[in-house]
């Protein structure tokens, strides 16, 4: 009956006393009887006890039903196990370290996954929040006019909010200090249920047309940029040169809505005209920059809300129809409807970018943990082997087998708890290091990596599971201990040595197989990374500085802007040490892209996408500065000014596709503009192919138009400067030169090499980490094999001694041991390769330039593993061959 056990918890010690008293009574009665039968008192007592059997074990059997006693014995087991572990320090250290590395790696990757994918939003009742979007399969942004329709329309929600990203510059002149913030609707904070730690948050009353500029700053920004000023409310701050009043500091727990991004400040949407007067995007009907979230109004369910949302949204679209769109586009605009969906986690761009890579890493570290488990299991087996006598004695003295198994598990659990504790420490450091991997020079990644309940539960679960896993083999062995045999053999069995090592060897085989899988995937990912990094990008990455400048030209006429760029470029070319310089709208692999559709006479494309061409605007000298080759025709020059004939330089791929049968130079093509019109260009040059958006993509058609002919151009300009020294050394000179040309100019610097590296950071992350973990697994497997073989040799000293004494050559003995290693290796390799074939699909998507079953990589991995295992087996083999037969036999 279950409750009696529970009751016994509270009277535990009494139960134990009861049993002892009762047994004592029985022995005393028996003794009396024997004495009255004529036996001496002393002999009678011994006989009474003997008849009783083994009193302590009986007590154990009698007591075992009681939970309190179970706890009591568990505590005794813990102390006993701790004593045992302290006694063999080397074993304990290696075991704990193996586990700490395995569990730590798992915790680190899991805490990243937790932060990126699982963590709830830091807001009130996050489960009530839904995303309102025009597309069912992804989150789409809306325009401000549409947002106002939703806000003021009859929507089925308790409340709605909108937000959009923005970036400001914290300095007014010189090198930029960018800060990311959000445009937010007045309902933003109240809908999320987020308050202020100082001052107040924005309210619906603040978000009225023509409002003054004001901001709520984040707790992090208040601390890092405002010196945690207690009197911050009411202060003003310059954002991109505009003075803005700070009205409050947001709750420290609120770090934004998207994993990976922590906005520094929140500005009401209505203040947009104050911050950037010229663009006026609040009225713009085709500027999609706002995301809309809504809070459900229980008991309305998501499905009910969607039913109400669909009919309501029709009017919103007809009210905001963009007048200048083509009839076709207008029709499809009106066909849109709104949906609400629960996928808040999808808000994070980081999630889309990394979830696949994180899953691969999770699989990799799980395998590392398995290898570590096998290692510890092996160590424990060897240890149990050495303690065979001790355990046999315990069993012979009446310890239940269950008790012995429990003792072994307790030992395992202690090890894995110690490993997990140390592992959490590793994970804490490791996961922060990992976040640095995810960052690019442009994007800082903010992730809340705090150890929360979920991470703790994961680590604890992993620890217990590992303890069970590696405790299994030794426990299985302990269950089969035959005390008589074990005591008789006295640990010097020659014959049973083979069967005894069956478990240990199969563990090593498993380790070899698993490490082969990791080594192979590491080799594949590394090969892929090298292939990606080594791809001919078509330009020279080293030694090139990119200076992205804002020349403050908003008041200037278009012709004056072009002239300012030309003169600034000339001034930058005069900086000592600059060997080449140019300017362009973008640089290769920058995040901003621009594409158009081309038409060439006599050329038809099978699909409309085939006519897609990537566009950049450049100044003369761009190709020579970037190290691209002009294959035909000429570079731009002074003749290519506004008003002159429209000219273009195309790349090799475009030349082949647009002019398959004639020389491209002198040919013409058209670019489709809106409303069915098009613009004609004459080709004046052909340039070599180079990467545009990604170095993984095959060559695509590209078009370079002269910046000097584009008078509508109105955004920033990227100057490119090549110098023999370190690129960043040019910074001061560039800032000074820009200040001469445009006194209030601001600039931010990047190296082209870093910009390129940023685009392959997932490859780098996977290659580096899989290499690290593959190496770790290999090391663990080597330790495991070395330990097993050393122990096998030590146990078979007698047998080897006899062989040597009978005339076996030392080389025969060592090749016997190495033969065993080879068998382990062969079996492990076969299993490992099977595993590789079964799992390559997991990494296939991340590979570039290598096929998942590349024979070279598979053979190389097996050879590497073979070298490592033979190295690990060499020492024990040598030891065996140098055994002194006389000594070995004497010890028997």
């Amino acid at each position, binding site marked *: *009956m279950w409750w*009696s*056990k529970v009751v016994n918890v509270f009277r535990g010690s009494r139960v134990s006393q*009861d*049993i002892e*008293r*009762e*047994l004592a*009574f*029985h022995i*005393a*009665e*028996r003794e*009396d*009887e024997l004495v009255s039968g004529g036996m001496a008192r002393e002999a009678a007592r011994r006989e009474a006890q003997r*008849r*009783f*059997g*083994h009193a302590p074990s*009986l007590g154990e*059997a*009698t007591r075992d*039903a009681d939970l309190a006693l179970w706890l009591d014995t568990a505590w005794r087991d813990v102390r006993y196990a701790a004593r045992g572990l302290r006694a063999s320090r080397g074993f304990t250290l290696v075991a704990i370290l193996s586990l700490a590395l395995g569990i730590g790696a798992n915790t680190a990757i899991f805490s990243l996954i937790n932060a990126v994918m699982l963590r709830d939003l830091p807001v009130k009742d996050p489960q009530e929040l839904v995303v309102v979007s025009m597309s069912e399969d992804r989150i789409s942004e809306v325009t401000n006019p549409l947002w106002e329709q939703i806000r003021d329309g009859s929507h089925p929600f308790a409340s709605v909010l909108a937000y959009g990203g923005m970036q400001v510059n914290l300095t007014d002149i010189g090198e930029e200090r960018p800060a990311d913030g959000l445009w937010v609707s007045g309902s933003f904070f109240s809908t999320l249920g987020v308050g202020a730690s100082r001052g107040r948050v924005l309210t619906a009353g603040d978000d009225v047309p023509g409002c003054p500029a004001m901001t709520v700053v984040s707790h992090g920004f208040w601390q890092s940029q405002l010196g945690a000023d207690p009197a911050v409310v009411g202060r003003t701050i310059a954002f991109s040169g505009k003075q803005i009043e700070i009205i409050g500091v947001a709750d420290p727990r609120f770090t934004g809505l998207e994993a990976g991004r922590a906005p520094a400040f929140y500005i009401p949407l209505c203040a947009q005209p104050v911050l950037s007067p010229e663009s006026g995007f609040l009225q713009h009907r085709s500027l999609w920059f706002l995301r809309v979230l809504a809070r459900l109004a229980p008991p309305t369910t998501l499905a009910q809300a969607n039913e109400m949302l669909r009919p309501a949204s029709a009017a919103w679209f007809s009210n905001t129809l963009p007048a200048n769109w083509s009839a076709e586009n207008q029709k499809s605009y009106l066909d849109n409807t709104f949906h609400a969906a629960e996928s808040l986690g999808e808000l994070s761009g980081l999630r889309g970018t990394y979830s696949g890579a994180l899953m691969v890493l999770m699989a990799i570290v799980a395998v590392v943990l398995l290898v570590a488990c096998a290692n510890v299991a092996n160590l424990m087996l060897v240890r149990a082997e050495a303690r065979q006598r001790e355990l046999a004695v315990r069993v012979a003295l009446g310890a239940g087998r269950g008790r012995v198994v429990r003792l072994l598990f307790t030992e395992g659990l202690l090890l894995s708890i110690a490993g997990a504790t140390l592992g959490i420490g590793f994970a804490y450091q490791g996961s922060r290091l990992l976040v640095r991997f995810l960052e690019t020079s442009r994007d800082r990644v903010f992730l809340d990596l705090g150890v929360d309940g979920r991470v703790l539960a994961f680590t604890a679960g992993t620890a217990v599971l590992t303890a069970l896993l590696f405790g299994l083999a030794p426990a299985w062995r302990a269950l089969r201990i035959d005390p008589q045999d074990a005591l008789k053999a006295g640990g010097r069995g020659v014959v049973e040595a083979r069967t005894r090592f069956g478990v240990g060897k199969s563990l090593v085989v498993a380790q070899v197989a698993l490490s082969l899988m990791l080594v192979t995937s590491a080799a594949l990912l590394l090969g892929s990374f090298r292939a990606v990094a080594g791809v001919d990008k078509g330009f020279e990455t080293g030694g090139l500085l990119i200076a992205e400048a804002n020349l403050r030209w908003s008041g200037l006429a278009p012709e004056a802007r072009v002239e300012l760029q030309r003169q600034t470029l000339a001034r930058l070319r005069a900086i000592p040490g600059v060997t080449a310089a140019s300017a362009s709208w973008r640089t290769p692999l920058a995040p901003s892209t621009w594409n158009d559709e081309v038409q060439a006479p006599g050329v038809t494309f099978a699909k409309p996408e085939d006519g897609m061409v990537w566009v950049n605007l450049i100044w003369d000298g761009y190709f020579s500065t970037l190290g691209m080759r002009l294959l035909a025709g000429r570079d731009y020059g002074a003749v290519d000014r506004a008003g002159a004939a429209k000219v273009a330089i195309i790349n090799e791929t475009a030349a082949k596709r647009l002019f398959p049968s004639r020389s491209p130079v002198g040919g013409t093509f058209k670019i489709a503009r809106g409303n069915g019109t098009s613009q004609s260009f004459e080709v004046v040059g052909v340039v070599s192919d180079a990467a545009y958006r990604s170095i993984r993509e095959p060559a695509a058609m590209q078009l370079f138009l002269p910046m000097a002919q584009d008078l509508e151009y109105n955004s920033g300009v990227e100057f490119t400067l090549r110098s023999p020294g370190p690129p960043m050394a040019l910074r001061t000179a560039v800032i000074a030169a820009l200040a001469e040309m445009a006194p209030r100019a601001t600039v931010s610097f990047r190296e082209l090499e870093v910009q390129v590296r940023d685009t392959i950071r997932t490859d780098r992350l996977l290659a580096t980490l899989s290499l690290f973990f593959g190496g770790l697994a290999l090391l663990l497997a080597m330790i495991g094999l070395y330990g097993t073989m050393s122990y096998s040799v030590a146990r078979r000293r007698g047998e080897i001694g006899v062989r040597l004494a009978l005339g076996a050559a030392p080389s025969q003995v060592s090749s016997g041991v190495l033969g065993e290693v080879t068998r382990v290796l062969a079996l492990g390799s076969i299993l490992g390769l099977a595993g590789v074939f079964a799992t390559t699909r997991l990494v296939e998507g991340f590979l570039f330039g290598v096929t998942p079953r590349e024979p070279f990589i598979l053979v190389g991995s097996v050879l590497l593993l073979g070298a490592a295992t033979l190295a690990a087996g060499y020492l024990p083999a040598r030891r065996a061959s140098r055994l002194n037969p006389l000594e070995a036999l004497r010890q028997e």
Partner: protein
Amino acid sequence: MRRAKNDILQGTLDLLVLKTLARQGRMHGYAITSHIQRVSAEQLRVEEGSLYPALHRMEQDGLVKAEWGTTEKNRQARFYTLTAAGKKQLESEEATWARLRDGVQRVLRYA
């Protein structure tokens, strides 16, 4: 927590203990062993090592009740009495035993 009926040895010991308590009323463990030994004309000897675990198990299952008391020799002993559940259990154990005995006898006679 009922044990399987075909656990002969275990079941037999339980049967013997329950029967003894049903006949004799309140008894301590030592008296139970002596009684079984005497009544069975020394044919059956109860292993001390099995008796107490069995008694405790039966107590947990609610078949017997235990309390501390004093023996004629003025020693502290734990006395066991049968509960209502124990009486029911005894009946079913007796029936099981009878079936088992019949079965074994038939096999011995005809096999």
